[in-house]
């Protein structure tokens, strides 16, 4: 069947108007995915290693635990890997108040619904001697920072 020019142009005209309409809906939807976020950076400084007592210290600003050993420091996330509640340190294990997940002293799952263990974060020493944590970089369990100034 042959299409004459008038029919084709009419079809093109209607289609382009409709396409513009659909594109505008897409553009409006895109606005809801923010391009600029005013969120805290994933790399931040804590206090100096020697400012932390031996054992487990909860940092409420960054929702993590700073764990100071005899000559090492490491950082474990306090955000439950199940659905994001803050876990609590109970002397021997981390427990979650929302759905009952339990993690051992190294963050490994003992029981409960949490799928993976609590991540360890990369921790280094900034030039002015502060602990520098990168919460976007998980490191394998056991990778602790050896503190040069640690007074055992």
């Amino acid at each position, binding site marked *: 069947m042959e299409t004459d020019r008038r029919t084709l142009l009419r079809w093109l005209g209607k289609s382009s108007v409709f396409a513009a309409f659909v594109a505008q809906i897409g553009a409006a939807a895109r606005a*809801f*995915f*923010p391009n600029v*976020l005013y*969120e*805290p950076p994933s790399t931040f400084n804590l206090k100096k290693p020697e400012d932390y007592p031996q054992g487990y210290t*909860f940092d*409420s*600003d960054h*929702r993590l635990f700073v764990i100071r050993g005899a000559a090492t420091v490491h950082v474990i996330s306090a955000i439950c890997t*199940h*659905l*994001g*509640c*803050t876990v*609590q340190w109970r002397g021997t294990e981390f*427990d*979650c*108040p*929302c*759905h*009952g997940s*339990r993690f051992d002293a190294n963050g490994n799952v003992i029981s*409960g*619904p*949490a*799928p*993976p263990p609590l991540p360890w974060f990369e921790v280094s020493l900034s030039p002015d001697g502060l602990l520098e944590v990168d919460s976007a970089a998980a490191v394998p369990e056991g990778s602790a920072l050896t503190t040069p100034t640690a007074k055992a």
Partner: protein
Amino acid sequence: MATDLQRVWRKLTWPWSPLSEREASEAIVRNLWLHWFPAKVSGRSLSWSYSLWLGTAAASLFVILTVTGVMLMFFYVPSTERAYGSIKDLQYAVSFGRVLRNQHRWSAEGMVALVFIHMARVFFTGAYRGSRVLNWLVGIALLLGTLMLSFTGYLLPWDQLAYWAITVGTNIASSAPLLGWTVQYLLLGGHFVGQQTLLRFYVLHVFFLPAVVWMLFAYHMWRVRKDGGLAAIEAVRAERRAEPKPMPRSKSYSLFGLTPGTSVAVMSSMGLEERDQVASSPNLTRRMILVFLAVFNVTLLLSLLFNAPLEGPANPAVTPNPAKAPWYFVWLQELVSSTTIHLGSFTISGGLIGGILVPGVLLAALILWPFFDRSPASAEGVWFARTRTRQNAVFTIISIGIIILIIVGLYLRGPYWHLYWPWSRRPVLPQVL
């Protein structure tokens, strides 16, 4: 004077004085307030014991929620810094602000309960069948809308419950495969719960969701009318059909194949007769007003006796111990707590199974149920029809299961989400921070 006022009022609203039955019917159609009712309704549809008027009660709550909600909007500030304070102001500084907020809260919880019980009524009376399947589906959408309104609503005070509910809720969304992260990013307006999140949930709660629910509700009502009334009239219709009819005086057109469809005589014998119907006003309107007033007074009484819960201000560092969802979501909290599956080294989170898959399966079952119902038409519009006993049993068992999970979550869960008997002592927790 009084008659003058009456005359003016009539002129404004109802410029019509009925002199006959027919004119009275037309008068309803011509009245500003009554024209959205049919002129006549079947007497059987108005029965108290058949429908228990649960839908009307739920709709009354929705009206109360809309009005109290708009009033609350004059006091509430959707900012993470001021939201909690504005709720405290409502509690302590605004005259009757506490009652206003209480009534909004108790009406909301009542609506969740009544919408569910209304659905149970429709199920147990087999009223979702035949031509009413579409309205059953609209009803499911309304149930979901009600739940979403509740969820977005209790986030707004920006207390601990609000903060941790958003955190857990959006993490459940993110555990969905493929689109999970995108949905979470869209809901939160970022990676963390913050100002963008509150504003999004606020707009969803005060405009978007109510608009959708109002439109669906209007459609729900319109469908009830188009389906001829409640399913209870099907028995009356069957009775009328069985009665011997006088021969039609004129021959039907379709006899000669001139027009398609059913003849006029046959059409009239399918419907209800004059004696089955009553005028909408006052028979329907009076009952509706009674139900509304009863519901309003119950919510008001509850609001005077009990205060709506408000936890401490949102604290991103510390999760309450235990952190409990409101009663209508606590069964989901039980599910996500116990459905993580380990298959060797492979783990599927309870967030996906208990938070998305199980509710998804229940929802799919509700949607598909009418299409697999093979019981005879006589089960339509009858409470606990013999032919539907097994179906009713399945619905009851699932409902009881959900209720048991709710009771376990509400009364047996203690600190760290451990199980305790209600009478057993719970450990005293050290102060965090």
